[in-house]
């Protein structure tokens, strides 16, 4: 049972600030996923928790103990690396028992721990092989096994699936989910840039961007109630559409006149006197539906369609420099290409952003 507490954690390389003001409270037993675009510092943050990078500001507590200056091995953590980082000159058994051997455990203890982990990960037949004689998926399991034998309080995963092929990635993702279920009191922190992994595995997701935390929440919170435009566009694929507009009606529901000529109604409440406020209206592609009504949210010519079978993705015509509006309709609609289509959306699924922040969350 171990929680983590990050207070004002910061990382700077000389003058260059990579991360700052990271505040995060992780309860024991959670599976936290760090996501963010490349270069956002998510791996750096994980490596700071592991102790591989020095923390240049703030405090990191594991289990209520400040561990800023505690060496990695004594933090009660184990890490699974993106490239597996298996010791190439050691057999699977030696790879898995290395940490225990360094810790001076007895041979019987080591054997028991290795056997147990090998059984759980179906590595039994491969214990005396060298890593080079294993497939990618097996190597990944050895790397996980190496973490398991140490029985750490906190597991750290650094993009563990990114070197696997698509099919294996799904299978290993499910294995990790099952592993977590088998150890409900162990905390896991998982770094990925893959939203599907984040959405399926996480108990809570931490979205990192621009050297700080953008939003922390359960996967569905992030999807349904993004705090800002960045999270709104980062979570969900294709990304959320943003339309420029101006508030025309306030109250429990808000009416917006859009730059493209349409109108939008959002369930997000606004106050009196906010008429005329310039906002961005956000609608996810899957929330846009075709309409023949006179009141439409957007209309445009379909430039291109991608029929995936279960859904069809429509790309609307955009002037150079603008982002194309995208709609995702259930079923096959390849015939819409070149046609003029009007779209509307359920007010409960229309998001409003002002200066990049969601109006839903303001005080």
């Amino acid at each position, binding site marked *: 049972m171990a929680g983590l507490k990050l207070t004002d954690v910061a990382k700077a390389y000389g003058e260059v600030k990579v991360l700052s003001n990271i505040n995060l409270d992780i309860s024991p037993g959670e599976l936290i996923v760090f996501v963010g675009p490349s270069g956002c510092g998510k791996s750096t943050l994980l490596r700071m928790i*592991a*102790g*591989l990078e020095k923390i240049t500001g703030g405090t990191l507590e594991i289990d209520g103990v400040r561990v800023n200056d505690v*060496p*990695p*091995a*004594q933090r009660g*953590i*184990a*890490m699974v*690396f*993106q*490239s597996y*980082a*298996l*010791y*190439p*000159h*050691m057999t699977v058994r030696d790879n898995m028992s*290395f*940490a225990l051997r*360094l*810790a001076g455990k007895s041979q019987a203890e080591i054997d028991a721990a290795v056997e147990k982990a090998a059984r759980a990960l179906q590595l039994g037949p491969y214990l005396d092989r060298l890593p080079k004689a294993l497939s990618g998926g097996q190597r990944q399991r050895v790397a996980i096994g*190496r973490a398991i034998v*140490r029985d750490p309080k906190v597991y750290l995963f650094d993009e563990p699936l990114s070197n696997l092929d698509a099919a294996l990635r799904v299978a290993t993702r499910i294995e990790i989910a099952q592993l977590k279920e088998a150890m409900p009191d162990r905390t896991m922190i998982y770094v990925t840039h893959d939203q599907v992994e984040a959405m399926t595995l996480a108990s809570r997701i931490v979205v990192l961007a621009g050297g700080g935390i953008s939003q922390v929440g359960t996967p569905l919170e992030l999807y349904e109630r993004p705090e800002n435009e960045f999270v709104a566009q980062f979570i969900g694929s294709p990304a959320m559409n943003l339309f420029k507009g101006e508030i025309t009606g306030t109250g429990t529901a808000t009416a917006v006149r859009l730059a493209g000529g349409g109108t939008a109604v959002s369930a997000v409440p606004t106050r009196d006197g906010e008429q005329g406020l310039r906002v961005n209206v956000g609608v996810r592609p899957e929330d846009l539906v075709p309409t023949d009504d006179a009141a439409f949210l957007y209309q445009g010519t379909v430039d291109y369609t991608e029929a995936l079978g279960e859904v069809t993705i429509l790309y609307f015509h955009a002037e150079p420099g603008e982002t194309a509006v995208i709609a995702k309709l259930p079923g096959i609609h390849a015939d819409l290409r070149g046609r003029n289509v009007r779209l509307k959306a359920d007010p409960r699924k229309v998001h409003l952003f002002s200066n990049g922040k969601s109006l839903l969350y303001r005080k």
Partner: protein
Amino acid sequence: MNPALQGLITIVVGVGGCVAYYYFSNQLLDKVLFPARGPEAGRNINRANMIRPWLFLFPALFALGLYLAYPVFETLRLSLTQRLPGGGSEWVGLQNYRNMLGEPKFWEALRNNMLWLIVVPAASTAFGLLAAQLTDRIRWGNIAKSLIFMPMAISFVGASVIFKLIYDTRAADQPQIGVLNALWLQFEGGFWSLVFLKIVPALILLAFAAIVAWVAWIFVRPMFKTGEPTGFWTVPLRLFVAGAAIYLIFLSLRSIVNIFGAELPYGQPQTWLTIPFWNNFFLMVVLIWIQTGFAMVILSAALRGVPEDTVEAAIVDGANPFQIFFRIKVPQIMPTIVVVWTTITIVVLKVFDIVFAMTNGQWETQVLANYMYDKLFRANDWGIGSAAAMVIMLLVTPILVWNVWNARRELR
């Protein structure tokens, strides 16, 4: 004619001749012998392509054959013959080898060669590895690396001259120009003399004995494990290694006793190169000084090739810097260490220039290559000289084969 002009003409003619050979022989093959026209054009192209590699390899093969393969067989023949007074030669069978084995100087050379063989590759590789690891950690590491690598650019003879000056001796009342004697005269039998001249060498010898014991134990240990398949040769080989190790440990322990028993001539300048047995080590220093740079460069590249994340994984697993170095990094670059070690071993087996330039084999510093030179060109005894050359080749060949095999495996 001006010699510089002569040299220039030689270069032009040589390079031009090579270019002309490749160009015209290729033209001959394509245009005259197997022209790519007529009814058999396709077959001719195939034939020309089969012959072309041999055509282009011919100069190299010819030169290697003339200057390498032929001399080997001629040396073998010469080692079995004897020069007759007044010209001509006669077949004497293995008599030359018998004579050679009867000479104490040959056994001295063989013993010294074995000493060189143990000390120089081990010391060069160890120092090279140490330098490679340490210079990677510091800011001025690249400067240090260049300095350590620089002796590689000095010829063996040049290095020998430098070290002859270091070992030089002047009478006690004159200023010493040799660094070693200048240092030696600082010792007067006090506390620091005890530390530097007795305790430190004893500790080094003790460490050497411990390393030998450890390596031997690694070799011998599998014999006690039951149930493992063993080849026919493994048991004798392991026993041989164990025997050699015991001998080396005995030697080093005896040396420790000798060190503490010895009365050191403080205050008297020493002629270092005439102190029997130890003068071998003064010669070895020259080669170690040169080869450390080579080992460092190769091992430094290998160390950089060790994946950083395996080191980080070891840190998370709780390894300290020594464990990371010896249990993660060194095992991963072991193939490179073996290649470096064997490459230096071959250089050592052929060592000639250093001994020739510094002592010429006097005062019990003879080595095989210089012994061969002595017999062949000074005593004019081509029979024994060739026999000595064959012995050197016999010693080098297995190591060379192993080296090439390792290097090729490394490349794969």
